[in-house]
Structure formats: structure tokens, C-alpha cells
């Protein structure tokens, strides 16, 4: 379907629908529910240099129109990914993008360097915005200096498409976006989760083991849309819109606000085949409005 094709710099996408890291496993978890090769891309689980056990249970709290999570980047480390997971997913006919996280700049650099050698991984998403790990993660994403340093260091060793995932837990997300653009990021994806909290009043205790966690789901969509719109006006690099997308209409709203592609996260938990429906829904929208290419929607908000 020619009209759905888009691109993030050199990265060609068959459609703008991708899955958000941490909500889609390695893709194979969803293969019973739809043909995952139908996706524009799969952002696999956040990967770190060393194995991480993540945070203790409980890690999840359901909130009005949303959920908090405090998984804490549980993963078996990049070497395990390369040896055991990459061979099982590399031939899926879509863009397999690795979300890379770290606790210090050197961790990010070493992990990105290892992923750079994998032929079938055309891009990484640099996660400088995880709110659920004590050191690093979001610490890099909340100052222009921290964001600049990590992107500059990774850019030196990573020569494919570099997407940087931004935190909404900042005063002005456009400042961070401009800083990473200046260091050679090919794209920014936004937003990661919003730092939140849930309390069990009966027990007078926090619901999450970590007390605070990351809020996602439809509740965050208006904030995400606003941040995509602001960032679209501030940078020239393509934007990947993320935040509470449940339907094709939601996805189109992000495109109109300035996103080139989108990631679906929490919705995968509610309907494991939702991404397939969103791809079809975007095609229907284009046909209904006689729009020749999905690219024509990018930033096409009429204000």
C-alpha cells in the first residue's frame, strides 16, 4: 500500500504504525493475534548492557483511563539479546528497532555499538527517559546537557537511524529536542511515561513497590499531542508520536500535530490486535478524505 509508506530519515516504513518499547515484548508474543509483519516497526523491549532484574512486584497500578508501571527495565542484557533473541526475530518483515537504555554514558555507547553490528536492526531508539530506574534513564533526559552528552557519544559509534525517546517530565521538551537534534539525532520519539503515583488509602500504602511509576494510556494523550505539536514547530527532524493511542483516529491526530510515525503502547494490553486495526483505519481515513499519501497528514493541522 503505497499511500501508507513513510520514512524516518533513511528508515523506510511500510506504514507509520509501530509498537512502543516495553508493551510488545519482542513481537513474537503477539504473533498469535495478527501478522506482526503488517507493522511499520517493532520497538523491542528496553535493552541494557547488563542483565537487569527490574523492580520488585507490584509494578502496576490501574488508574482512571491509564496505568502506572514500574517495571524498571527488566531484561537479560544486550549479549543475551544478540545471541538468543535477535536470531528469532531478525527475519520478521518489518523494522525491528532496539530500545537502548543505560545507567551511564559508557553503557549506552557500548550497547549501541553492539547493536550497530546487527544487520537486520536498522535503527535504535535511545531511551533517555525511563522514570523507573534510580540512576540514569530519565536523568539524562531532563537536562539539555545530559541529553546532548549521551546523544553525542552514541552518535559517534552508531551510524544507522538514531531515534531519541524524550521524557515529558521536563519544563520545556522542545529545548531537549533541539539539543539532541544538534548532536545528530535522526529523530525524536515522544512522549515516554509521565511520572505519577497511586495510593491504597485502606492500607495507607503506595500501590507500587517503587512508590512512583510511569503513567501511560489514554489519560496522557492530550499532553502527548501538545508536546508533539510544540516539538514539531521547534525541530526539523521527524517526530515519532507516542502517548495513549488507542485507535486510528488517535494516530491521525498525532500525525496532524506533526508526527511522521506513531507508536502504540498501552493499547496492546487491551487489544493485542489493535495495531492491525490502526493500520487499516489509517488507510480508510486516507481513502475517505482522498489523501494520496499518509505523509500529507504530517503537521497538516489547520490552525
Amino acid at each position, binding site marked *: 500500500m503505497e499511500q501508507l509508506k513513510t520514512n524516518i530519515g533513511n528508515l523506510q516504513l511500510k506504514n507509520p504504525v509501530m509498537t512502543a518499547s*516495553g*508493551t*510488545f*515484548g519482542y513481537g513474537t*508474543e*503477539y504473533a*498469535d*493475534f495478527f501478522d506482526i509483519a503488517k507493522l511499520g516497526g517493532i520497538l523491542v*523491549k528496553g535493552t541494557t548492557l547488563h542483565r537487569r*532484574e*527490574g523492580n*520488585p*512486584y*507490584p*509494578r*502496576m*497500578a*490501574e488508574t482512571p*483511563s*491509564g*496505568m502506572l*508501571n514500574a*517495571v524498571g527495565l*527488566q531484561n537479560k542484557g544486550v549479549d543475551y539479546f544478540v545471541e538468543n533473541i535477535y536470531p528469532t526475530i531478525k527475519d520478521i518483515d518489518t523494522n525491528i528497532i532496539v530500545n537502548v537504555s543505560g545507567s551511564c554514558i559508557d553503557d549506552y555507547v557500548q550497547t549501541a555499538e553492539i547493536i550497530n553490528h546487527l544487520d537486520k536492526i536498522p535503527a535504535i531508539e535511545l531511551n533517555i527517559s525511563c522514570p523507573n530506574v534510580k540512576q540514569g534513564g530519565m536523568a539524562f533526559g531532563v537536562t539539555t546537557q545530559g541529553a546532548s552528552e549521551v546523544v553525542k557519544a552514541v552518535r559517534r559509534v552508531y551510524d544507522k537511524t538514531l531515534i531519541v525517546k524524550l521524557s515529558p517530565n521536563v519544563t520545556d521538551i522542545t529545548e531537549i529536542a533541539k539539543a539532541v537534534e544538534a548532536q545528530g539525532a535522526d529523530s525524536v520519539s515522544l512522549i515516554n511515561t509521565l511520572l505519577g503515583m497511586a495510593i491504597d488509602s485502606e492500607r495507607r500504602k503506595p500501590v507500587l513497590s517503587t512508590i512512583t511509576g510511569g503513567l501511560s*494510556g*489514554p489519560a496522557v494523550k492530550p499532553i502527548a499531542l501538545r508536546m508533539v505539536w510544540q516539538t514539531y514547530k521547534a525541530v526539523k527532524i521527524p517526530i515519532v508520536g507516542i502517548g495513549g493511542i488507542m485507535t486510528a483516529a488517535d494516530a491521525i491526530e498525532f500525525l496532524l500535530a506533526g508526527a511522521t510515525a506513531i507508536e502504540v503502547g*498501552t493499547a*496492546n*494490553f*487491551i*487489544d*493485542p*490486535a489493535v495495531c492491525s486495526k490502526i493500520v487499516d483505519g489509517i488507510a480508510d481515513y486516507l481513502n475517505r478524505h482522498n489523501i494520496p499519501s499518509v505523509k500529507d497528514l504530517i503537521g497538516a493541522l489547520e490552525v
Partner: protein
Amino acid sequence: MKKYQLDLIVVDNVMVGNSATLLTLTHSEPLPEMIAGQFAELQVDKAKVLLRRPISIHNVDKTTNTVEFLIQIVGEGTKELANLKKGDSLNVLLPLGNGFGYAGTTQSPLLIGGGVGVAPLLHLGKELKSRGITPTFLFGGRSKEHLLRLESFEAVGKVYVTTEDASLGEKGFVTNHSLLIDGDNYDKIFACGPTPMLKAVAAWAKEHEIACEVSLEHKMACGIGACLCCVENTEEGNVCVCKEGPVFSIDKLLWNN
């Protein structure tokens, strides 16, 4: 096992006691195979709660092509499920997780349930019976109204009960029941219920060197091993209850007893 997303039709939905509902669903085509101990993720009206509700498979009837869920009504989501009417459509993911290891592992099983934790033990009991193995059930509840559907279990095997207030059966917890004085009568225990009960049962089973599997209930989002929210710490590190469980051999759990 392949997982399915199906729009099932409500055949029946009746209250059991005053805080649980028995939801019976069918499908236009034959329902997939479901192993006792597996569960399903039931869609709730998204305007009410966002996430699906993970519910264990209570009973499967191939002759009527139905699956039953015994659901404790505890919050908004389960309240909505209890409000479903005959003929309503319900989107369900199933079968999920790993079931009990009952094929060829036991001749004299003891099935222990606490409260609504009896739910998966009916399907299990019937599966055992169909293999010529008569299960013994031991159920515990705070009082007799918390012991659900005893008559259905009595049709499958002998049922013993304990209640904390002595309103039915012996007084106390399941692990206090006189049935357990001579533990050598059983070669395997299958248990589901509140974690403190499961820990007590696991400790008893270890002490008597009887194989024991427990079904855990953790808060879940996806139900298919993607979100990593429902983890239990095991000898292999944090694993998803939805994917590696919900049934675990107690030897894998780090319960320190």
C-alpha cells in the same frame, strides 16, 4: 499453545452466594482446548476500566461448547462482568499461561482451594476424573458463604471443608484440617487461593515431601508476557506469572519455607 482472541457469547450469568458470579460463555465455533489451570483475559467496558481482567478457567463443557468463569466481585471491572446479560458479546483472550501438570503425575491428588481460589480446581478435578483418578478436594473459607459451588465439586470427588468461624466443616485453616494428619494418603497437591494459604500449603507439602503445584494470582496488564508487570521472583529471577505461570511447582518459588 496458540492463543486466541474471540468474541464469545454470554449463555448465562448467575450470582453464586452474595459476592461471586458464574459466567458461562459459548462460541459459534468449537472452543479451543483449555488445560486446567490456564486463564483468560476478559474485556471489560473500556469506559469503566481500562485493562482486561485475568480470570481462571473454572469449567469446560465440550458437549455444550461452553466455558465457565467463577468470578469474585471485588471492584469495578468484576462488577461489570457480573452485569453481563444472556446474549451479550464478550471479547476474550484464551487460553493463557501454563496449566497444572496433572497428566501422568498423580494417582491420589489433593486439590486445595481457598475462597474463590477453588475456581480452577473444578476443571482440574474433572480432567483427573476423566483419566480414572478420583480427586479429593479440601476447601477453606472465612465462613460457609465463602465456600463456592460445593455441590459441583461433590459430583466430582470427596469434598472436605474448613471455615474460620466453624460455620461449616472443621474450624480453622485448610492446613489445620484433620485430613492432613496422615499426609501420606496423597501423592500430589494442587492449590489455588490467597498467598498466605498457598505458603502454608507449600510448607506442609515440603515437610511431607509431597509434590505441590500452586496457582498464583498477581495483578496483570497484558496477560501474554509482554508488559512484565505480574512478576514473581523465582530461582530463575523475575518471571511473568501470566506466561511462566500462573501454575508453579513450589520448588521454583523463593518462599523460604
